[in-house]
């Protein structure tokens, strides 16, 4: 097993780094902190924030990736959210979508409900689950240096790619993006498709 490295990365800094040069990336965020993290970088018309549908972020990314094969799709979500729909990793692996990247911000906690420990605190390894599900390109990130190497993977390498970023459970301020579903849907689609 070996000793696990210490978790030092700050989730806000990680998301800011990932989205720094996002180009025409389409972003789906899982409910809770990942949605606030993306909003903290700045609201963006190519962001679709989930405010519910726990367990559905990666699969929403899959449907979007199938519909938009020429765009890069990034899903940023939490460990608890991913665990709730973890069978989706097998579904995604089977579809082999080359343009889909999944990034987990793994603080090993259910942040929105009182920081209870998730399964990843107790030996469950999401990146290994992804590789067991058949996803070939998986990695785990503990350090700034590893993050720097992982960002091009998220943007450029043949998907599906899965990057699990271990982040601290330090509380961060809530930054809320728009939450009206039809508004989020319309602006996302109008910008992407030219119509609603």
């Amino acid at each position, binding site marked *: 097993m070996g000793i696990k490295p210490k978790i030092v990365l700050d989730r806000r800094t990680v998301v800011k780094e990932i989205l720094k040069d996002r180009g025409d990336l389409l972003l789906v965020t899982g409910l809770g902190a990942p949605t606030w993290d993306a909003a903290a970088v700045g609201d963006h018309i190519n962001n679709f924030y989930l405010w519910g549908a726990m367990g559905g972020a990666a699969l929403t990314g899959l*449907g*979007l990736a199938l519909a938009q094969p020429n765009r890069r799709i990034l899903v940023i979500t939490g460990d608890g959210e991913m665990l709730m*729909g973890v*069978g989706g990793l097998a579904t995604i692996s*089977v579809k082999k979508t080359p343009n889909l990247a999944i990034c987990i911000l793994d603080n090993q906690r259910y942040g929105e409900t009182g920081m209870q420990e998730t399964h990843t605190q107790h030996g469950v390894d999401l990146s290994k689950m992804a590789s067991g599900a058949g996803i070939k390109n998986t990695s785990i990130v503990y350090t700034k240096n590893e993050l720097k190497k992982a960002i091009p993977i998220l943007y450029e390498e043949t998907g599906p790619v899965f990057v699990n970023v271990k982040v601290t459970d330090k509380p961060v301020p809530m930054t809320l993006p728009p939450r009206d579903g039809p508004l989020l*849907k319309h602006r996302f689609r109008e910008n992407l498709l030219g119509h609603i």
Partner: protein
Amino acid sequence: MAVKKKTSWSNAVFKILKENNIKQIAYVPDAGHTSLIQKAIEDNIVNPVSLTSEQEGIAVLSGAWLGGDAGALLLQSSGVGNIINMLGMVNECRFPLLMLVTMRGEWGEFNPWQVPMGQATQVVLEASGVIVHRAEEPQDIAETVEAAAKLAFEGGRMVAVLIGQRVVGFKDWAK
């Protein structure tokens, strides 16, 4: 398996799905959907998505709509129980949603374990804001799916077509 011949209606239903520009068909297998699933796999334009659990399909079709594709979910009545929370996203964002549900737990059911969910399927869907159509005769299925597709994609609603067990046929426990 005493499953009735289902190619006749599945041909017509698949044609309607194509006419409605359905590009993604997500499914969890059911005997009643066998030939429809096969058609989705063989079609050059339709992207078939095989799921481990039905709730995945709701999220996939939400993403499909965001990306400009229309889709449909094929499931069995037991799978309706797995999608309820995920429907909240579809409802709140007013995504169109078309579901074709083959019924178990009603007409001639041999497995008592299928009965509770089968009997609850329609009320649970309706309680979640889904408009429910039923098709009880083979000749009604295509027309019902056509109406449901229109209501879903033009009327912008969540619509389920429940295909009665009477049409799908029933299995024997010991065969």
